[in-house]
């Protein structure tokens, strides 16, 4: 897309927001200027507008800035428009319990524009736990939640996707369509999928499916952790993950049942 169709000031503002998104405690103006390679006066003027909009806030530290509370309201509107509000409401306490029980991060993903989009995440509490990022999306052929969602797609759409070249991210990425199809069959039969470092070399994951009252797959709950924990997670926590998905599915079915209203 040609740059002529973009607005440079908005590009710069987004760069600043993305930068602040990496620093929960915020950054001082000079640091923002250095990291974004913008002049201080440019950053100053952009921040004035972002502050007025509530997209950025001042922190308790003199001259420091961080992402602002207005983003929470905007994100709530995104969730309201996603059609996944019921799913989010039902799933959140179950994910919280799963992560508390296992100490590992858990996340909820849905199929969105041909990718697996994370719409809710609970950070893990153990020393090496990962922190999944809400709003991040992954290709459907690489990743545990991805494969659960891919396996549940309509056959024609799935075949079309698998007929395109499958991008390799690591040595473990399954790029052979026939091998991927076999794995999807196994995942469907057994009710869970695994990622042995297919998207990130050092990250493994387990995932299972959340179904609606009619039995259709609505989402996937997955747990991502450092790869060396894979065997221990499979042996120790796979049943808890499957139970978690079953409990969310049961709550969803109750929500849809008019007699329960």
């Amino acid at each position, binding site marked *: 897309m040609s740059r002529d169709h973009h607005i440079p000031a*908005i590009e710069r503002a*987004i760069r600043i927001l*993305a930068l602040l998104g990496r620093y929960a405690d915020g950054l001082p103006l000079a640091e923002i200027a250095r990291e974004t390679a913008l002049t201080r006066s440019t950053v100053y003027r952009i921040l004035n507008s972002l502050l*007025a909009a509530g997209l950025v806030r001042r922190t308790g530290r003199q001259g420091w800035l961080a992402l602002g509370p207005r983003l929470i309201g905007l994100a709530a*509107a995104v969730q309201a428009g996603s059609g996944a509000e019921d799913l*989010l409401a039902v799933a959140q306490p179950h994910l919280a319990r799963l992560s508390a029980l296992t100490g590992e991060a858990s996340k909820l993903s849905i199929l969105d524009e041909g990718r697996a989009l994370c719409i809710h995440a609970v950070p893990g509490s153990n020393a090496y736990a990962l922190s999944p990022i809400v709003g991040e999306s992954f290709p459907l052929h690489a990743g545990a939640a991805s494969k659960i969602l891919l396996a549940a797609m309509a056959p024609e759409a799935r075949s079309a996707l698998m007929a395109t070249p499958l991008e390799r991210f690591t040595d473990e990425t399954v790029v052979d369509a026939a091998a991927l199809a076999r794995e999807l069959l196994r995942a469907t039969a057994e009710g869970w999928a695994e990622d042995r470092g297919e998207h990130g070399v050092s990250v493994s994951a387990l995932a299972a499916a959340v179904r609606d009252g009619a039995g259709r797959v609505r989402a996937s709950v997955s747990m991502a952790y450092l790869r060396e924990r894979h065997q221990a997670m499979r042996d120790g926590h796979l049943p808890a993950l499957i139970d978690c998905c079953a409990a969310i599915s049961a709550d969803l079915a109750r929500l849809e049942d008019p007699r329960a209203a």
Partner: protein
Amino acid sequence: MAADAQRGARADNGVPVNGVPVLDRMSELLDLLEHRPEGATIAEIARRLAMPRSTVYRSLNTLAAHALVRRLPDGSYRLGPRLLGLAARVTIEADAGGLVPLAQLHLDRLARAVHEVSRLSVLSDGSALVVAVAQAHGEPAVPARTGEKLPLHASAAGKTLLASRPDAEIAAFLAGPLPALTRSTISDPARLALELAEIRRSGWAADRGELVEAVHAFAAPVRDASGRVVAAVSVPFPAEAEPPRRMRIRSRVLIDTARLTASLGTLPVHAGAGGRR
């Protein structure tokens, strides 16, 4: 004004001084899309915001390239998924990582039950900062939005959070100014101290028109697994509500806040929140 100093200098028309006009328009555009979950077209946005279509088009294009908005197949635009990621990185001094999303479910249930808005507030920079809101179905009598700041001495949520602080901190707060915002504001430190003691004892707080004469509210504290107060849930309602309705609102606030506290018992709440770094 203090609130403006917090956000940045503004001229009389609300436009920031020394800002970037196209970013101020971007903020208005996001505002418009926030209230249009089904999406809005370029023509419609241009008309509503009195902006040239080409500017609207280029702004949306830029935002869409970063998934802050999304173009739908019918050519209209909605807010995009990247906002979920940015919002997840917003830290509020007292936020207990994961409190806000977990609370939403309980706030929604509460709002549905009482037909009023419900809010979650945390202590931030000497105010009760509203970090999550559930809108009432039907016509909410009192509007509420995230990012709003409620004074600690003149709101139900504020008094709830203030009452949870250590005695020395409360004493320091009472020594400062307690501006009378309405005839009902408790601006006498001795009376406010008694009120806070009562809130600690009873586990709930009331606002009897102390911030806005026509609006009353009930609030209750949200506790983490260690029993520490991390937030307050409140429901504002019209002052003219009859006693049976008030009692129903109060009991629902207490019930749903207790449920939120119970679910937090399973959530690892990050220690060290609330303090100044």
